[in-house]
């Protein structure tokens, strides 16, 4: 990990990865959306509304993935003062917030015809809502200081405090009796959904994941450039 602490070396690798990630994302989105919206069968109970799941589930996975990696980056930044970790956490935060919002929104749209309600206060929905607020709080906190280093440090501590929420989201459907159904893909004894539905789901997950990588690399590049501009300006001012 420390080999990538050098921004120049990181950028060289990242620039090489970027077109592949973007391309993979485009291909997976095309294939996943076609399979999900047209080629896969409607569910025997849910009908066509099951297709919302091809957006909802990957968005939910990504919201957790983004927060977990941000928390790990925060720990790396606090322990080793890893220079890229803070840039990563800052770059990933709006993406994570976007995924979480998408997850809540699509879940609500699916819930309206299926559960007969837009929203219930069960453990899974509440904990994901808290996750969304954590993203917003992190972004507000990082921007609230005149000294960016101080904002980053405060944000990192908040990320680690909020990491308590991640296992709660994951296991909320098992610890409590929730209206939200338990996990059906990553479970002991293999997934319980039909292959015709699993494939578009996995393709969409790959699409979201590679989209995340492509955009996060762009945002890290912008973050590093902004930092460089700032140091150059400071140098000029002296």
């Amino acid at each position, binding site marked *: 990990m420390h080999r990538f602490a050098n921004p120049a070396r990181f950028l060289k690798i990242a620039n090489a990865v970027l077109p592949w990630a973007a391309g993979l994302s485009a291909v997976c989105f095309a294939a996943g959306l076609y399979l999900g919206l047209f080629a896969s069968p409607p569910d025997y109970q849910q009908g066509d509304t099951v297709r919302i799941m091809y957006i909802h589930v990957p968005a939910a996975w990504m919201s957790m993935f983004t927060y977990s990696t941000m928390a790990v980056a925060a720990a790396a930044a606090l322990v080793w003062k890893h220079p890229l970790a803070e840039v990563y956490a800052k770059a990933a935060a709006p993406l994570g917030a976007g995924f979480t919002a998408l997850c809540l929104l699509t879940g609500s749209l699916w819930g309206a015809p299926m559960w007969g309600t837009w929203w219930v206060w069960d453990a899974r929905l509440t904990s994901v809502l808290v996750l969304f607020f954590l993203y917003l709080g992190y972004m507000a906190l990082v921007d609230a200081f005149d000294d960016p280093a101080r904002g980053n440090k405060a944000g990192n501590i908040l990320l*680690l405090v909020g990491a308590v929420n991640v296992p709660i989201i994951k296991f909320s459907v098992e610890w409590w009796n929730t209206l939200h159904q338990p996990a059906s893909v990553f479970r002991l004894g293999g997934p319980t959904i039909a292959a015709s539905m699993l494939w578009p789901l996995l393709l969409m997950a790959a699409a979201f994941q590679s989209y995340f990588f492509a955009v996060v690399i762009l945002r890290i590049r912008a973050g590093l450039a902004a930092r460089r501009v700032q140091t150059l300006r400071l140098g000029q001012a002296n």
Partner: protein
Amino acid sequence: MLRLILRDLRLVLRQGSDATAALMFFVLCVVLFPFGVGPEPNILTRIAPGVLLIAALLAALLSMERLFQGDFEDGSLELLLLSPLPAEGVAIAKVAAHWLVTGVPLLIVAPLLALLLRMPADQLGLLVGTLALATPLLSLIGAVGAALTLGARRSGVLLPLLVLPLYIPVLIFAAAGLDAGLSGLSPRPHLLLLGGMLCGALVLAPLAIAAALRAAHE
């Protein structure tokens, strides 16, 4: 550490306004509800636990902003961090003082307010017990937010944004415990969870507060 607690208590007693303001806020907040939802006894009994808990939560939040601010501005926080007492010790002492000043008066007033909200008298012990578990948790979690927002712009707006989502679990289990008591079920599992959260926060929150305080002074 004890001396730090006593110092904080003395400061508050001499000024007086901060602690009483939080308490008055709690009382007025609760008193507003019968006007807002109407004085029917059934409704009041039903919403009493939630009203009391939310008012306690907001009162804790209200006094939270001043927790480190005064010491931060006049520089005594920096001296405290330089003293042989570890930063975690400073954090625990400040939180303890905050709880003694804002949490304990709430515990004393809450039963009276509960009677105003037509809560049955045999539930008052449970109410005080739940609040005794919940208010230190509120102080601990809130102090993390207060330490993180030290020196921030608009810290008054930022603090609730950071802290309120983290208060949700406390509110859920405290309210579940009180509701269980009201409907004749055992509140024990909810209170045990609340106690577990308190134990966890007692260990982890000082670490986070100390890290945030050190970050504020770099």
